[in-house]
């Protein structure tokens, strides 16, 4: 339990670091956001007034402390461009990202683990070569390529699925595959290598001496052991998906965290960008803790 508390304290420190870092980076970028926000023809006084109201005229440490105290109270500031609280915007976008994540994680895990297991069982035989080729494509083809190719194939060529996300589950299929494609590839490769490694473990000999065939021994005894590193990877992937998929969400027009972050960059909306980055960091740290907890549940050696 004390280990868990240590992890939580660690997460808080990470979040503080992320806040500081993003704060500094955004302040280094030249140009006054107030000037960008107003039109080119705004006069000096208007700009100065806006600068003051945005606290941009204060010293940097003071600005940071103001931001920090706001964040602790759950106030991540006001979006310059959309004129609404950042927290509301992030929480509105999050359900879309969650939906995309659930679909693509389901695809990546089912497909990735199945391919990895089949590859490992038929090691160095035809199915293995075939699936290894596929999973290599999985890890090496970039997301936007996969997304455009899927749109071309399933919308323009065969018109089976909608081009963009329209709120229906069917229109979520292509974005899910596009986002899950890389994850599926790496899950498949890790599952395969981890399962093959189990072949050297002595307990598989015990299982065979007990009367299980080599295949049954590998699937009944090897798979559970082989899953430990895979689960760590899955949790990391899950949290990175949850923190927003900029490319996939943009290509398919999904109003998730990634799209929000992208529009924040485009409009130089500092509070919104800070908010989305902070939120992503929070989700990824949470994912790490959760993966540790799952591994503790599965592996009896990690239980205290």
């Amino acid at each position, binding site marked *: 339990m004390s280990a868990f508390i240590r992890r939580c304290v660690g997460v808080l420190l990470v979040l503080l670091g992320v806040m500081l870092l993003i704060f500094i980076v955004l302040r280094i970028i030249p140009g006054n956001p107030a000037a960008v926000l107003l039109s080119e023809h705004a006069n000096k006084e208007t700009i100065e007034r806006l600068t003051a109201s945005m606290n941009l005229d204060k010293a940097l440490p003071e600005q940071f402390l103001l931001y920090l105290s706001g964040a602790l109270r759950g106030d991540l500031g006001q979006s310059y461009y959309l004129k609404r609280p950042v927290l509301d915007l992030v929480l509105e976008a999050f359900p879309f990202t969650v939906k995309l994540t659930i679909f693509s994680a389901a695809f990546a895990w089912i497909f990735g683990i199945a391919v990895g297991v089949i590859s490992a069982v038929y090691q160095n035989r035809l199915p293995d070569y075939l699936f290894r080729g596929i999973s290599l494509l999985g890890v090496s083809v970039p997301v936007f390529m996969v997304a455009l190719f899927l749109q071309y194939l399933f919308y323009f060529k065969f018109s089976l699925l909608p081009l963009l996300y329209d709120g229906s589950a069917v229109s979520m299929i292509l974005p899910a595959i596009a986002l899950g494609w890389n994850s599926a590839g790496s899950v498949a490769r890790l599952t395969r290598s981890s399962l093959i490694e189990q072949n050297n473990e002595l307990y598989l000999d015990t299982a065979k001496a007990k*009367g*299980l065939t080599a295949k049954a021994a590998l699937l009944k005894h090897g798979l*559970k052991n082989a899953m430990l590193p895979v689960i760590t990877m899955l949790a990391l992937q899950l949290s990175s998906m949850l923190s927003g998929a900029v490319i996939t969400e943009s290509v398919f027009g999904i109003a998730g965290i990634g799209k929000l972050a992208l529009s924040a960059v485009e409009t130089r909306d500092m509070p919104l960008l800070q908010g989305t980055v902070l939120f992503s960091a929070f989700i990824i740290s949470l994912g790490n803790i959760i993966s540790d907890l799952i591994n503790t549940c599965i*592996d*009896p050696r990690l239980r205290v």
Partner: protein
Amino acid sequence: MSEDKLLEINNLTVSIKEGKEMLPVVRGINITVPRNKIIGIVGESGCGKSITAKSINHILPPAAKITAGSMIWHEASGQQTDLVTLKEKEIRKRCGKDLAMIFQEPMSSLNPMMTIGSQIKELLKIHKLENNPQKAKARVIEMLDAVGIPEPALRYKAYPHELSGGMRQRVMIAMAMIGQPKLLIADEPTTALDVTTQAQILKLIRKMCESYSMSALMITHNMGVVSSTCDYVYVMYLGTIMEEALTQELFNNPLHPYTRGLLSSIPKLGDNPEFLKTIPGNIPVDSKKFKGCKFCMRCSDDIKKCFFEEAPLYKVSENHYVRCHLAGSDNKIVNSEDTSNKAGSETVKGGKNK
């Protein structure tokens, strides 16, 4: 040896793929396991004793293949089966039920993710020995008790890492015994344990053999293990049986220089502690071209003949055979052995031609 045989290993040759060549590591050995007896195979690391054990229940590493020989399993009904020719499914049906095995490393031989109880119970399920889960659990607990695990009902739910090495080896023995096998293959069962635990485990194996009228094949490098447990011993060196005899006979009258070397390597109280006796040299790198005695490089008594001709297995008495020109030259050559050995070397050549 009596006629009541359980397992008869004839001319077993096992080769390991090394690059493109098949390197024989067990070369045409003959071993007979009678019913209700404990048979020992003793030799240094790398002599092929573990490979011999693992070839019986087909758990050889992927690079190793049985290239010649047979392993005849004698049923009580008189029916005979050659285990070498069995398909994977058929041999697995026997594993756990007819043949059981315990291993050198009790630390890593159990699945770390499963409770020991469910691992033992799995065997009952595989062989459909007990379909009722409640009764199966009761049987497992009973067996854990029989192998001397305290509080067996509590330990049933323990994970391997929660037990000591000796306890885990007892769990392995319980797992081996629950299918009531006819033959227990024990591959260096005490090597990884401390001395007091060793003695307890050996005693337990003996007790189990007696109470379940089971035979055992004890693979070891430890002469002490042999003397305290085995009825009959095979001394193995570089994949060849060098000497075989009743245990008593072997210890009283060791004939092969290698056997004598092994016996004199046991430190005795009162010896000069500065000098431990050893057999000089290491196990040599094997060469197919070399036709002489495999031991002659390290032998203190070698004669010229040893370098050119491998000795046949000489019969010293009904219960004692030795493969040494010096020790056995007054005695009869065992014909069958000699011919089968030739056949073995031919098959190896045949294997190479493939």
